[in-house]
């Protein structure tokens, strides 16, 4: 220890201790990083929700002028960007972080400091993307930002620059996290946990991480090209120099469609954990669910042009993408049938996580079916750019992803905090959200088929869309109310002094429930050996002569915190320093090259300090 003290300046010495706010800044513990992801993404979810409410207020009646057309464009663009990149993806990431090491029997992820870097880059990227609300305007050209409409000729506002820099940073965060989880899941499983014994949530995280690692570089290139066009005057999307607008569309959707599965697969994984637990049955058709997930991930790469049916790619391309799009509905349907098979004959408990998972199935079927209707180019030509599409994506992303993620919040909250969320308030939350969401989004299908265009800040009364738009707005208000119920439930629960959850409140099946809640920082005092799927269930129950599970007397989880001395990764300043350097670099590109230079230096300093800092805390000399 003395030698290290001699060479490293005091303020750079490795931070120690687990108390106080500062310990969250330097943490590399996957559970704490997961909590940071969770809190940040829920905060952004509320920001995106407020944007949605303003949009709905503007559309509540014909000819409204709550906001100007310019602000309206920024609102719907930022609503989409916030919900996709700052709420759903990182909330999924929160569950990857909290759950995956516990489910596979590991003490942390493969690269704990890289994990911290992902979080900080995500946070700074999210702030940069939102900086436009305070400095010079937000991006207002939709989340897809079709070039050349977004080139500096047609959109000289600062908003698109925030879009480019913010998304580049978020891409770095996503790729770093994806590499981390790919390696963690392949390489850190407990003895005996073969691939086909992995919990389905782990499987879906794996597929999602592979999609992130491969899709993010494509949008990165598109953003670099757009940024070069805007800042340096290159011609990637400049039609006057021969550039093709369709290049952006292809690059964007080659990323954009895998992105859709990046948003939904984690929720499918959560549902596949919750349903067996509350049906007290193993997951029906485990291999079918796993291979369907893999197939969805693979086919996600082969359907992107169905976003471009009205571009005029020609009948051959349209037909090919119709076939692949119809094909991808098959594994999704297989999953739904297997989930229903899981419920069949189970002893179902309608706890709040279960309600959200059942809501997921119902709403995702509706969203999936409306999605299949625009797999057909003639039908899509009718629906393109109408509220029908808005209705569809909200059924799959709100009814699907968000319901799945809330199911996860109610399911794993006791594991993270040691406290149960209130059941009564939880059920109230579910029903208000379920009803509100249907009232808000179902009418969009009718007005959409009636021709109401999306992304238009108002409409005329003579079009006959007044009533259903008002209904949608009322529904949005009900959803907002349900979120207040959730917040209330959340704050009541975290302030409970008594840890009422216990290690295994749901009598669940996977390894994360085998330790105390909240888990000790080393997770497992002893790494478990896995003998089958549902590893923890097998420790608790043996199959009786009549096929009925019988409890094993010594089986359950232990709530006793064993005092073991396990070497864990040490706290570190360097992830946040490196992330700050990156944030300075990317925001500096919008301000001054001197800031970029400082940012690059800081990032290099952080990276070098990181490389020379041993991953584990130095042992104290005696």
């Amino acid at each position, binding site marked *: 220890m003395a030698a290290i003290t001699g060479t490293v300046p005091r303020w750079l010495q490795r931070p120690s201790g687990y108390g106080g706010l500062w310990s969250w800044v330097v943490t590399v513990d996957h559970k704490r990083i997961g909590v940071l992801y969770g809190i940040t993404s829920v905060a952004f979810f509320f920001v995106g929700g407020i944007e949605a409410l303003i949009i709905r207020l503007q559309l509540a009646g014909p000819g409204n002028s709550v906001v100007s057309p310019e602000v309206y464009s920024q609102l719907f663009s930022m609503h989409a960007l916030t919900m996709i990149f700052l709420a759903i993806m990182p909330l999924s990431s929160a569950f990857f972080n909290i759950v995956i090491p516990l489910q596979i029997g590991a003490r942390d992820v*493969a*690269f704990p400091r890289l994990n911290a870097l992902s979080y900080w880059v995500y946070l700074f990227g999210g702030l940069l993307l939102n900086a436009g609300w305070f400095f010079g305007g937000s991006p207002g050209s939709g989340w897809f930002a079709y070039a050349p409409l977004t080139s500096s000729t047609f959109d000289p506002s600062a908003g698109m620059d925030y879009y480019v820099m913010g998304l580049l940073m978020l891409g770095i965060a996503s*790729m770093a996290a*994806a*590499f*981390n989880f*790919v*390696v963690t899941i*392949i*390489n*850190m*499983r407990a*003895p*005996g*946990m073969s691939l086909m014994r992995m919990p389905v949530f782990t499987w879906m995280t794996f597929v999602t991480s592979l999609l992130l*690692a*491969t*899709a*993010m*570089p*494509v949008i*990165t*290139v*598109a953003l*670099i*090209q757009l940024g*070069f066009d805007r800042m*340096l*005057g*290159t*011609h*990637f999307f400049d039609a006057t*120099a*021969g*550039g*093709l607008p369709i*290049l952006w569309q292809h*690059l964007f959707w*080659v990323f954009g469609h895998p992105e859709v599965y990046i948003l939904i697969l984690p929720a499918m994984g959560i549902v596949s954990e919750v349903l067996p637990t509350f049906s007290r049955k193993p997951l029906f058709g485990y291999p079918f669910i796993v291979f369907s997930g893999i197939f969805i991930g693979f086919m996600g790469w082969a359907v992107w042009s169905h976003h471009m049916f009205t571009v005029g790619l020609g009948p051959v391309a349209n037909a090919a993408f119709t076939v692949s799009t119809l094909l991808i509905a098959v594994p999704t349907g297989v999953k739904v049938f297997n989930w229903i098979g899981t419920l069949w004959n189970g002893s179902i408990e309608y706890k709040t996580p279960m309600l959200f998972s059942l809501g997921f199935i119902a709403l995702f079927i509706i969203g999936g079916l409306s999605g299949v209707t625009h797999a057909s180019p003639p039908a899509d030509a009718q629906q393109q750019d109408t509220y029908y599409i808005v209705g569809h994506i909200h059924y799959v992303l709100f009814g699907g992803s968000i319901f799945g993620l809330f199911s996860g919040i109610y399911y794993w909250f006791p594991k993270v905090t040691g406290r149960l969320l209130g059941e009564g308030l939880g059920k109230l939350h579910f029903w208000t959200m379920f009803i509100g969401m249907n009232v808000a989004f179902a009418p969009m299908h009718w007005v959409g088929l009636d021709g109401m265009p999306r992304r238009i800040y108002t409409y005329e009364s003579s079009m006959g869309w007044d009533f259903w738009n008002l209904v949608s707005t009322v529904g949005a208000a009900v959803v907002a109310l349900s979120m207040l119920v959730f917040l209330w439930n959340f704050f009541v629960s975290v302030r409970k002094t008594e840890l009422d959850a216990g290690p295994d409140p749901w009598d669940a099946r996977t390894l994360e429930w085998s330790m105390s809640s909240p888990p000790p920082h080393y997770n497992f005092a002893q*790494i478990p*050996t896995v003998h089958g799927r549902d590893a923890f269930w097998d420790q608790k129950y043996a199959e009786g002569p009549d096929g009925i599970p019988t409890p094993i007397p010594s089986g359950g989880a232990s709530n006793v915190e064993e005092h073991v001395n396990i070497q864990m990764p040490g706290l570190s300043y360097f992830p946040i320093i490196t992330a700050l350097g990156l944030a300075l670099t990317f925001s500096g590109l919008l301000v001054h090259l001197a800031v970029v230079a400082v940012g690059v230096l800081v990032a290099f300093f952080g990276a*070098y300090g990181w490389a020379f800092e041993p991953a584990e805390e130095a042992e104290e000399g005696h």
Partner: protein
Amino acid sequence: MSQLSHAAEHPPTTTGLDHRKMVMWAFLGSDCLFFGSLIATYLLYKGKSLVGPYPADVFNIPYTSVSAFVLLMSSLTMVLALAAIQRGDQRGLRIWLAATALLGAIFIGGQYFEFITFYHNGLGLTTNLFGTTFYVLTGFHGAHVTFGIIILLSFLVMSFRGRVAPEQHLNIELAGLYWHFVDVVWIVIFTVIYLVEAPNIV
């Protein structure tokens, strides 16, 4: 049975591969998509420039072939550097690391000189689609090589300070993986840009 007893020994990783090696492969796989998108853009715009200069007006293929050869040879010296540290030969490690970095630097110098020459021949970043796609694709490749040189020089300095122990040869191997990848990408880029003939549609 032998598998069971093996599992009980708590292997450091499930596959036996080091985490860092696996993450390097994941990163390289991801980087393939990065270069793939840039190369696809170049191919899409090949021969689509509305004004000159066109590739045939500026390319000096023998010159670029020599610099490509230099970069490929740096892969050989990289292999020799890894072999040196694996047998604990610090002096060999330093020589071959320095040689690899030097060859990389010659390639970058050649690219710099080529860019300057093209620029004097009227091809700027914003002159036409060819300039835009050419400079951005080869520029990002050059940035990768430059980053690799920084890493190699870092290891060189570490070796002089006695901080590259033979049992840490994985670090050198990872740098090598990255370096070879950047070389292989150049083979593709060189072929696509310099060797495949494009029609000049004006």
